[in-house]
């Protein structure tokens, strides 16, 4: 009932999805059709079924849901291992992103059992009996579990994620006291996996104008950096009914961040800073 950290999967849930029609607001090309079922190998003793979103851009068809039966004894403990098992043993066309397989690169973010997380740090044993794997929510899909991140990376670029400074460059490094450095804790660790932005309902409805939690957390990371000299300019660029104030403190972002960061809090800090300079 009380979730203390974002890695906790809620065991108890009154309903698995919002009570709305399956095809609510879904345009024809995005309709998900029934796919095929791939049985487990005959020798498999412990089998787990995964329903996985598939989309093949070259088939001309719609996305569909395939069911794969995975031999759990034959694969590693993580969901990413199950995906590899499927790709190696069942269907080599299954596409997904991954690199580090230890939660530092952010590539393998996807929607598992209804919430966003990293496939490499989610245990298969934490998945429900009807395990479902979708790509990150609300993104244009290139293939299977690979979403097009162009727009959300452009939103990240829009907050100018680099040091702005007018003071001539010092001979050695720019100094920062340990206290000032600690202001970046909880923000600099962001791996840009976009679990938060993809899980934010406000970004679903207004993603073209609302910057979303990942970009806004990064915005605060630069706003709170003692070496940065563009605080005012940054706040000017953020103060906008859509860019910033579309955040309604829903906090799906904080609930889902696989690094345990707090985009919701970062956004509240920005709103507070804007009031502080005005009042």
């Amino acid at each position, binding site marked *: 009932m009380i979730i203390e950290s974002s890695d906790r999967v809620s065991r108890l849930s009154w309903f698995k999805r919002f009570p709305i029609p399956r095809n609510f607001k879904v345009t024809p090309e995005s309709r998900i059709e029934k796919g095929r079922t791939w049985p487990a190998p005959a020798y498999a003793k412990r089998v787990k079924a995964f329903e996985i979103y598939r989309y093949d851009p070259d088939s001309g068809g719609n996305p569909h849901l395939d069911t794969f039966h995975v031999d759990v004894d034959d694969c590693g403990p993580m969901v990413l291992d199950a995906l590899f098992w499927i790709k190696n043993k069942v269907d080599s066309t299954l596409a997904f992103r991954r690199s580090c397989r230890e939660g530092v690169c952010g590539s393998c973010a996807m929607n598992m059992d209804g919430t966003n997380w990293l496939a490499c740090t989610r245990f298969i044993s934490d998945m429900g009996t009807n395990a479902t794997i979708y790509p990150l929510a609300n993104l244009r899909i290139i293939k299977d579990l690979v979403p097009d991140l162009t727009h959300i990376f452009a939103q990240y670029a829009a907050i100018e994620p680099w040091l702005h400074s007018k003071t001539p460059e010092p001979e050695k490094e720019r100094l920062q006291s340990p206290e000032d450095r600690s202001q970046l804790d909880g923000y600099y660790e962001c791996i840009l996996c976009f679990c938060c932005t993809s899980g934010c309902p406000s970004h679903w409805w207004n993603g073209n104008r609302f*910057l979303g939690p990942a970009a806004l957390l990064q915005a605060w990371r630069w706003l709170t950096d003692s070496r940065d000299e563009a605080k005012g300019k940054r706040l000017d660029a953020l103060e906008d009914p859509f860019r910033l104030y579309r955040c309604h403190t829903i906090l799906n972002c904080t609930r889902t961040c696989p690094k345990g960061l707090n985009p919701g809090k970062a956004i509240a800090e920005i709103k507070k800073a804007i009031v502080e300079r005005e009042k």
Partner: protein
Amino acid sequence: MNRRSFRSPLARALGLGSAKSGAQHWWAQRVSAIALVPLCLWFVVSIVTHAGSDYAVFAAWIRTPLAASCMILLLVALFHHSALGLQVVIEDYVHSGVRFVVIILVRFGCYGLTVIGIVATLLIAFSG
């Protein structure tokens, strides 16, 4: 194909640029919310304690200066808060140009209802 697709991703993300406003709206929503806490509680307590009373008792209550003042303050804060809140809801879900019309109508509706409510309160307060 769609010519807009040749805009760069950054151009699309930047859109029309920052409005450099929005804090006022947000602040006013919070200020009206803070005002509403005591006003709404006063209202609910009054209604609960007047449950089942007839017209004479009710009118006598509104005629007290405190009740009339609180009712007018409540109407102002309530409809201000509501207009601000409804505008956000409309901006969230209505993306066509219709939203400008709807936002204006909601504003007018809220201001109109505020005035009607205040006049009604004053009529009761100064009647009889």
